[in-house]
């Protein structure tokens, strides 16, 4: 639902005729406000231009189709026909009430792996020099050169279903799975009911004592990781050293979503054609 349409300063419109209120998310099926009900002193040429928007099929909002399109990189200069060009980034209906910030991203749906995020060119506004430097920093850290153990930190991102944001952990600071798991438990215990991120420190104090490990033991959440082949596996089956070398990302998934995940490298071949 478009928040902005509800907050339009109607007085402003009345005193400045000729300045048209535009339906920002006009073509999105999320918009529940019928634009024809808005006061619109629209000169004919403007009407024509909005019609022409539709005629040239330039989208102003979220395309109707599901995951396959969401997984492409919209922002980058890949070959696109003008028809498919988006003027604005993808914006699904934001459900502010639940505070689920991940509404910005595609939901996993039936996929086991998190869907790829849509990219917007130049957002966030980080200089490409910095982006390249940070990217090569991460790759320098994760692609360990033989014979040089312990070179630098090994940061991997840890996400959790329902938690608004990721954390980063340095795998080098842990020595075994137990160590990692209890550290993650501390980090994410406040996210278990999915509300903590919004309220910050105060929220943590207000949270009940429900701990992550209780949920883990209750099989509600499982710890998974993405290996360097891009496959998602359950954590714990390979020796720790091999895990640190192959792990690229960690994810705390809901138990139900993890059914069908390859439990170990050996089993991987079963799922390949």
């Amino acid at each position, binding site marked *: 639902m478009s*928040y*902005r*349409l509800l*907050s*339009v*300063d109607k007085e*402003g*419109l009345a005193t*400045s005729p*000729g*300045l*048209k*209120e*535009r339906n*920002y998310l006009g073509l999105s099926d999320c918009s529940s406000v019928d634009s024809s009900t808005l006061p619109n002193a629209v000169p004919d040429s*403007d009407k024509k*231009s909005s019609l*022409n928007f539709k005629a*040239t099929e330039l989208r102003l909002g979220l395309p109707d189709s599901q995951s396959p399109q969401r997984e492409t990189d919209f922002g980058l*200069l890949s070959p*696109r026909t*003008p028809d498919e*060009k988006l*003027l*604005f980034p993808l914006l699904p209906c*934001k459900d*502010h009430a639940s505070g689920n*910030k*991940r509404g*910005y*991203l595609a939901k996993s749906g039936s996929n086991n792996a998190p869907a790829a*995020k849509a990219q*917007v*060119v*130049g*957002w*966030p*506004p*980080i*200089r*490409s*020099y*910095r*982006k390249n*430097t*940070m*990217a090569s*920093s991460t790759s*320098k850290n994760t692609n360990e050169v033989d014979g040089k153990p312990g*070179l630098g*930190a090994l*940061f991997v*991102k840890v996400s959790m279903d329902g938690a*608004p*944001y*990721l*954390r*980063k952990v*340095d795998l080098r600071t842990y020595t075994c799975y137990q160590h990692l798991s209890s550290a993650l438990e501390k980090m994410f215990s406040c996210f278990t009911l999915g509300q903590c991120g*919004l309220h910050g420190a105060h929220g943590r104090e207000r949270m009940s004592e429900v701990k992550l490990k209780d949920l883990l033991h209750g099989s509600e959440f499982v710890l998974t990781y993405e290996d360097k082949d891009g496959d998602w596996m359950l954590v714990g089956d390979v020796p720790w050293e091999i895990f640190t070398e192959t792990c690229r990302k960690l994810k705390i998934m809901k138990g139900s979503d993890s059914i069908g995940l390859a439990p170990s490298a050996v089993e991987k071949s079963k799922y390949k054609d």
Partner: protein
Amino acid sequence: MDLRLPSKVLEHIFSFVDSNEDRNSVSLVCKSWFETERLTRKRVFVRNCYAVTPAAVARRFPEMRSLTLKGKPHFADYNLVPDGWGGYAWPWIEAMAEKSPALEELRLKRMVVTDECLEKIAASFKEFKALVLTSCEGFSTDGLAAIAVACRNLRELELRECIVEDLGGDWLSYFPETLTSLVSLDFSCLDSEVKLSDLELLVSRSPNLKSLKLNRDVSLDALGSLLRLAPQLVELGTGSFSDKLDQEAVSKLSQAFTELKELKSLSGLWDVLPEYIPLLYSVCPGLTSLNLSYATVQMPDLVELLSRCSNLQKLWVMDLIEDKGLEAVASSCKELRELRVFPSGADVDETNVALTEQGLVSVSEACPNLESVLYFCAQFTNEALVTIARNRPNLKCVRLCVMEPFAPDHKTQQPLDEGFKAIVEGCKGLQRLSVSGLLTDKAFEYIGTHGKKLRMLSIAFAGDSDLMLHHLLSGCESLNKLEIRDCPFGDTALLENAAKLETMRSLWMSSCGVSFGACKLLSQKMPKLNVEVIDEHPLKTRPDSSPVEKIYIYRTLAGPRLDMPEFVWTIHKNPEIGVSNLAIE
């Protein structure tokens, strides 16, 4: 009675007028002041290389010794300006080589600099002393070798965040043995290895070397030996800080750091391992500037380091510092003037949840000299912005980047209009503002009403209608640079406020709803503006109502430029032929 001061007296008086803004004012008083001023101006700043021709500049300022040029629009930093747009340094260098051969300093930002340019500089300016390239591209290490070999009096060679084609580290060896004048060397953006022996030789014969910024490839070991050769350094950019050193090497390095009695600025620190942070403790109390924005250090180690930096004025750091770390900064770094917090992850989803608006609030409360802020954050609140404005009315630059577009106040779910209202109302000297988060037209009404000193404004994913642009163009009296992306306004506000555009340096709009027809109309109405339509995917026929991808409008005395690529259109171009057919004298 002739009350005019003789020009010799005027010259003497003007020699005390340093700032270019003042000199510009002086030149407007009367003809004789204009003449005297132009004949005595040594440092010339051209902040848009297409606003004026090189020949005109050389003609007006015959005593020019230092030239600063800026090329591409600011949003080029974020990949919004396609490659090949322009900003070529060559016409300037060629013109100056002929008309101002006494040029000593060249400072270029966001320009395309080729090896040919560098060779021309080396060959043409006998007294050349300083080359500072910021965010430039197009040259290789061969060009650097040309500069090194020929510029006998070189004092400064700084490459800041440039994209350089790295053909190897030999360029450093081209500095002749007779070169002893080096004051500042910055090659931090180069990828490849430089020969340590060349570097050591250069450093050891440069007694005036005050600033040395190494690239990532220089090891910790090498750093140690360099520091021992140059204990007089005031600015240091380290290389990679992550090799494993034995105990003896560590203590030697530690000793080298304690010898840096003059050090005021520290940067680099790529990949720094936590166990090496204590090596820096000895220089902390003297530091006024610390750039940790590439140091992936966690909060506790950052706190240990920063709590020792009581004289720090400028801090650049990543969001790994978290709110807790910023509280420590607030209590230890009372002299802080500038704070920049960068995201450690490149995506919205990767922002560090432990850095919130609270961190900035703490710093604003406790640091009385805080003037400039750049803050990347997952979310923000109106309350925090109101508090910050109340704590720090002396803020001059506020750049807030709420990473998620359209994010409302996360406590109240309201737009951030009221928060930014407090900022522009409370910080009366505010000169630069970047807004983000959910914003309606009201926010821009506030900015237009209160942002009277605002010179540069950056906006993305905000507003509802043309009112937004109208408020800004009609309200912000001092507005100089406006850059907007992905905002839903159309032609009306732009056309109604066309006259305003001549009082500004430039306006950038991308992914907004401006039509081709409006661009044509604006071009016709305002001959002193270049209205550039940048469209990489133009439609075969361009009806007046079709929206344009990107527009860059700037005032100019030089007329249309001759170096436009085919994806840039101005009114002077014949659409069928696609070539500009207007010649400039």
